[in-house]
């Protein structure tokens, strides 16, 4: 220890401090700051580049997902539209069918009613005509029968014979 203190040279200490602190200050200005700054900038740059690449990748994924979603939506919409159209068509056909049926039924019913009434009219007419003709025939028959006197008397007789006197 005593030897150490004896060996201690104040002059050397003085120069050492002067040189070292001077070197420290000079290097700080001309070397350490620019070096650490440049290294830091480079590292930041690399970090930023990686981050932006990652962001771009995520965006790409989002975009793809979006595209997929839109496509699916469009597909669903199309399917819906098609289904609706089909439904509409079916409905229309069914409606038309029902309407046609109803119309047809109505026409048939009308036709039947007309036929019925025509038939009745025809029957009535026929009856009338038959009656007329019958009366005519009867008239003619009667006129012919009653052309001679004897026959007229005979008839009256037979008729009187039919009428039973009560």
């Amino acid at each position, binding site marked *: 220890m005593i030897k150490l203190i004896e060996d201690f*040279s104040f002059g050397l*200490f003085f120069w050492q*401090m002067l040189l070292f602190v001077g070197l420290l200050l000079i290097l700080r200005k001309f*070397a350490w700051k620019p070096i650490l700054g*440049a*290294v830091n900038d480079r590292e930041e*740059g690399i970090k930023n580049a990686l981050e932006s690449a990652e962001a771009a990748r995520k965006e790409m994924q989002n975009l793809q997902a979006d595209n997929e979603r839109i496509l699916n939506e469009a597909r669903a919409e199309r399917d819906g539209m098609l289904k609706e159209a089909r439904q509409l068509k079916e409905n229309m056909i069914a409606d038309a069918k029902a309407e046609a049926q109803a119309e047809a039924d109505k026409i048939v019913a009308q036709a039947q009613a007309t036929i019925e009434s025509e038939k009745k009219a025809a029957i009535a007419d026929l009856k009338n005509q038959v009656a007329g003709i019958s009366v005519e025939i009867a008239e003619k028959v009667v006129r012919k029968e009653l052309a001679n006197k004897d026959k007229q008397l005979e008839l009256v007789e037979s008729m009187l014979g039919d009428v039973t006197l009560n």
Partner: protein
Amino acid sequence: MHPNLGTEILRVMQKRTVVKILLIFILVFNATNLFAKEAEKEGNGDLKSKIEAFKDHHLKDSHDFTFFSDEAANKHYGFPLPIILWDNGLKVFSSSKFHHGETVAEVDGNYYKLYHAKIYKTDAEGTITYDEHHHATNTKPLDFSITKNVVSMLLIAILMFFMFRGLAKSYKKNNGIPTGLGRFLEPLVLFVRDEIAIPNIGEKKYKRYMSFLLTVFFFVWFLNLLGMTPLAPNVTGNIAVTFGLALLTFLITNFTANKNYWGHIFWMPGVPTFMKVVLAPIELLGVFIKPFSLMIRLYANMTAGHVVLMSIIGMMFLFKSWIGSPLSFGLAFALSILELLVAALQAYIFTMLSALYFGMASEEAHH
């Protein structure tokens, strides 16, 4: 494709490996060279104390930059450094005046002598008086000399400035990606940030400590590595240097500390009042012990590394046998590689613990 391209590459690679191995060998050999010159003349008995002296000398700071010495011709190869003294006025002169401690330097009528890497004021003959513990009693003027360690630190500071300024500039030129040497430095800067600062201080507050942590990490590491070269200045193994670094950690810790930190020191929450009173002085002591341990750890590790490595290199010359010397060489080689690891490890530990203390100081209350 060129048919021989494969073999061409292989050859270049082999060449590089060879160069690397050669480089490591040169590092070790150069260090051993320092002893070789001294070892030539002396006998074995004296050699031991010589190595001891050399080791001692090497561990200390020096007032001149000597690459190697030729003892036979009494010549030192290197260059002198400026001596700056404060002794009733500023005295500036070249360290060549001392002639490596052999002569007395005369400046403005004052005489100075270099003795065991320290400058003492003496008379014209350079007499040094001793007390009973064989310590010099001459007055020591305030020594602000540009020593070998100061030069080493200045070198590293300049090197660091250009290296990291280059890295900072390369970002602008190359669109945020480093080029050249920056490719090697950037991961280290990121290591300090991601493995040292953020885990210990936290994501929110680490930024204001980064300048200190980065500077201290590379400063200590590069100085440790410089200590491994044949120049081998023992800068981070000098107590004044580690004291300075630890002092900065201490100051930054305490000046950026928040209420929560001081609360934990003086009035520990969640313990009985009696314990609070007992704990306060212990915790207060801890405030000083923490940076003190930083100072001692770095100093001791680096000094120990230099001592062990030099002792083993010195052993090569002591053994002078076909078995001992290669064995010592192998050991020195392995240890050099270990020391390279220690150089980085100690820089890491110093930075890591500093960050840990900063983290404690700026931690928010969480209960």
